């Protein structure tokens, strides 16, 4: 196996584009090395992008934040601005694995690993995050929910690399939250999860909302019906009931070692309710 650690994104993209055999990008490595260990993948080439300076940066711009592909999730948790503006995204990213994993894992890696149970993805989807993609044909941006096409597969083309995540500028009176269900308190993969992002209008009425669910379908799902259930409400019990029902209706999970169809469906609704309450409070609603 060849290991390369290029200094520029262009170089990295070139290496990936011309690679023969199996080639993988290495950011945090917390998924890739596990798959290598189990023999699921046997790379001929691994391209480590962490030596590219831009991948290590969190930039605040007039349009929001740009988070480099190599930024470890632990670093997100220490960024005061991000924590204030996008607490749901940060808490989702900080739920991935232990402190040891946090020191390495990245949101971009979490996205590109293309697991429906990825913790940071529902929160990013709810937040309207975009992926910045570089490739042989230049740069493009894509809503995060368009990156993953199924378990383990993405819409990225050969040589394309997600170089950063863009989070939009935070509107006032907005809040987001992410909750997942795991059997233990730590170290587990989400059995199901929910992300809620909302903005309040006058008198605490929800003006806009986005609701996403993880681990209940082949990809993370955005649930417009759930968002509609919230919009126009002050998060009363009726709205919460409708939210839970919409979420349950959006679930098409599988039975596997981590949970049953029945359990995932039911608990997805419970988590959406609870996440909505947190997001509402964060937005200043009472």
């Amino acid at each position, binding site marked *: 196996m060849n290991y390369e650690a290029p200094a520029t994104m262009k170089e990295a993209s070139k290496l990936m584009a011309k690679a023969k055999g199996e080639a993988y990008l290495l950011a945090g490595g917390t998924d890739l090395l596990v798959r290598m*260990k189990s023999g699921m993948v046997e790379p001929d080439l691994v391209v480590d992008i962490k030596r590219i300076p831009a991948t290590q940066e969190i930039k605040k711009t007039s349009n929001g934040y740009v988070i480099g592909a190599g930024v470890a999730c632990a670093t997100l948790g220490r960024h005061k601005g991000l924590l204030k503006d996008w607490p749901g995204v940060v808490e989702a990213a900080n739920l991935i694995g232990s402190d040891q994993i946090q020191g390495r894992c990245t949101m971009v890696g979490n996205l590109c690993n293309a697991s429906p149970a990825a913790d940071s993805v529902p929160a990013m989807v709810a937040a309207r995050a975009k992926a910045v993609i570089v490739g042989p044909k230049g740069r493009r941006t894509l809503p995060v929910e368009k990156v993953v096409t199924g378990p383990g597969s993405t819409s990225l083309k050969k040589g394309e690399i997600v170089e950063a995540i863009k989070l939009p500028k935070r509107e006032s009176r907005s809040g987001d939250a992410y909750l997942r*269900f795991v*059997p*233990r308190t730590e*170290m587990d*993969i989400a059995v199901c999860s929910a992300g809620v992002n909302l903005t309040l209008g006058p008198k605490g009425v929800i003006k806009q909302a986005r609701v996403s669910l993880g681990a209940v379908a082949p990809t993370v799902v955005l649930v417009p019906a759930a968002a509609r259930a919230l919009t126009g409400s002050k998060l009363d019990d009726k709205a919460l009931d409708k939210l839970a029902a919409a979420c349950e209706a959006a679930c098409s999970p599988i039975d596997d*070692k981590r949970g049953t169809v029945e*359990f995932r469906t*039911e*608990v997805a609704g419970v988590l959406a309710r609870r996440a909505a309450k947190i997001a509402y409070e964060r937005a200043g609603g009472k």
Partner: protein
Amino acid sequence: MTSDTSYTDQEFSLIGTRPIRPDGVDKVTGRARYGADASAPGQLVGLILRSPHAHAKIKSIDTAKAEKLAGVKAVLTAADLPDLTNGNRASYDVLENCMARDRALYDGHAVAAVAAIDEVTARKALKLIKVSYKKLPHVTDVDEAMKDNAPIVQPHVRTAGGDPDKQTNIAQVSTFGHGDVEAGFAKADYIVEESFKTEQTHQGYIEPHACLATLGPDGQGELWVTTQGHYTFRNVCAELLGLEVAKLKVTSSEIGGGFGGKTHVWMEPVALALSRKANRPVKLVMSREEVFRASGPTSSTSVDVKLGATRDGRIVAATATLRYQDGAFPGIWGMLGAMTSFACYDLENVKSVGYDVLVNRPKVAAYRAPSAPMAAFGVESCVDLLAAKVGMDPVDFRLLNAAKEGTKASYGPPYGPIGIGPTLETVKKHPHMRARLGKNQGRGMACGFWFNFGGQTCCDLNIGVDGTVNLTVGTVDVGGSRASLSLIAAEELGIPYESVKCTIGDTASLGHNDTTEGSRGTFSSGMATIFAARNAIEELKARAAQTWEINAKHVEWENGQAIAKGIEHSNLGPLTLEELARKSPTTGGPIAGHNEVVADGAGVSFASHICDVEVDPETGSTKVLRYTVVQDAGKAIHPDYVEGQFQGGAVQGIGWALNEEYIYGKDGRLQNPGFLDYRIPVCSDLPFIDTEILEIPNPNHPYGIRGVGETSIVPPLAAIANAVSNAVGVRMRHIPMSPPRVLKAIKEAQMEEEAQQQVSAG
């Protein structure tokens, strides 16, 4: 030998104190050497190819390409491990488990092995081995395996004492008890009858199996290995490979946890055979996935319990049917389940029947008080239910029915002085029992029993010229026993704890010691150490007598020194152990003590646990809020490590009760062979585990010691099940009580309640 009866209620000066352990610095600096930490010049890397099928005929194995790969030094199949077991079926089973012969019996069963110059090469070689399989029908569930039309796991197996012509998966049926249970139930005012299931769990030691094997063409070999029983490993490896026992030296490395799982050989004979074939040292280390798929987890079970009591709260009849799967090879696990199930109680009419059942899963090994936790889960759940029917407090109900000195145990013998009653009395008075519970919270308690074991033991105690002492024992230190044995030697000799250095001897330096299992380490090596020290004291007294030129019978040993007794010797000042040691070169040479013993009389052990939980009614998730262990230790030699055993066992039980389970797919393959999805408790899942050590001396040990290692895993399944059931108002009958199972039980109960309300409303 018969049991030792030299117990005296003596005052101790060191026993019961908490000095630091002798291996502490090595273990906090990374210096301690475990199974995978040894290397030898020229060593090869060994790897094993494993069956991807639950049950398959091995039609052929083509190793030609692997053998030709540059850097490959040996390729091994069953053909390289001829059957030398002389019709000993138990030994043949071990051989077959180490390397599949004509059939792969479970997902993960070894089918071939390689040794190569490095891991990359060895991995490549494994891929070049072509195995042609014919898949056979498989069975992994214990109840399914007992059915008449179930796929047969081992065609030669017949139920012991059963139909000699009938192929079956039921290897053994074991019945225990006494009295007339039918008559007992006829007298009962209340009867409880319930069925329970538990899923398969693994010991989950953090250190995978690992060894470094060297075996030459001269039949001489060395094995460095993580094991609970290096003498047993030596005997088994020698038998399977046709070696002379004395020519195979086995050294136990520091052991990174065993809990019963390192009492059997798994890949060690293969490592030795690879080394013999390559004529180079071979290091073989299992991956975590291999540990889960191909070492020895505990049984999954299916248990029925029936209890009857009279209005005054006396249990008048008790029966249990316990079905344990043994994996693909016959074991004694159902038998142990049947033996332990009712051991806590004083019962006139009792019967338990244990089934040992074969399935296409890895061979079951001991796991801390093997088989007892699952039986206790069923019985202690029913005891709670029966107490409720009778209208008694569960602790009072247990106290009323608890076994005591003189009770005939349900598995046969009468009890001596035992701790079940005292642990229950302690629970009854414990502040934990009076703490207030909040919404969605519940409390449960349960009792547990374990036999404990003694077995063959020997040790050497050598006194150095400066008066310090080398204590060499043959039981592996799995949890701090070097500290407790050093305390015992120092106590007996009357010297400081720091003057004793305790070492685990290899198989060339001591006689046979049974495997460190059955909580026997401190009990049996403690006994041997006391006798060896007394043996050395006799010699010390003789040397003092010689020095003083008086008769040895006038010399006594007190506080680490020889004292000349009698007025006529009042001019003779005491001689310390150090003084006698310094003189030893000229008084007869080195001074030592030895002991070889079959340490019978291991005192049985009982525990009672209390547990508080909170259940999230919307997700079925359970949090353990508070946990208290009360257990009889006989005598706590080093209380820190006694508490450590109580806490560790309780937490393993908590993991088992709530989340740990082997999950097999329809294809018979294990779906969760890793610590991500085989969920052992993490630090943030738990509260502090409170402990109370009771000391009811074992009359069959000079210091009153009972084993303490195992009993602590017995009550938690039931204690937590009782707590969860009390919290949610639904009886939990299936372990682990994972969130999906608990939520389903809550929902079903709600629906039932609603249906009943509709009926009564209509």
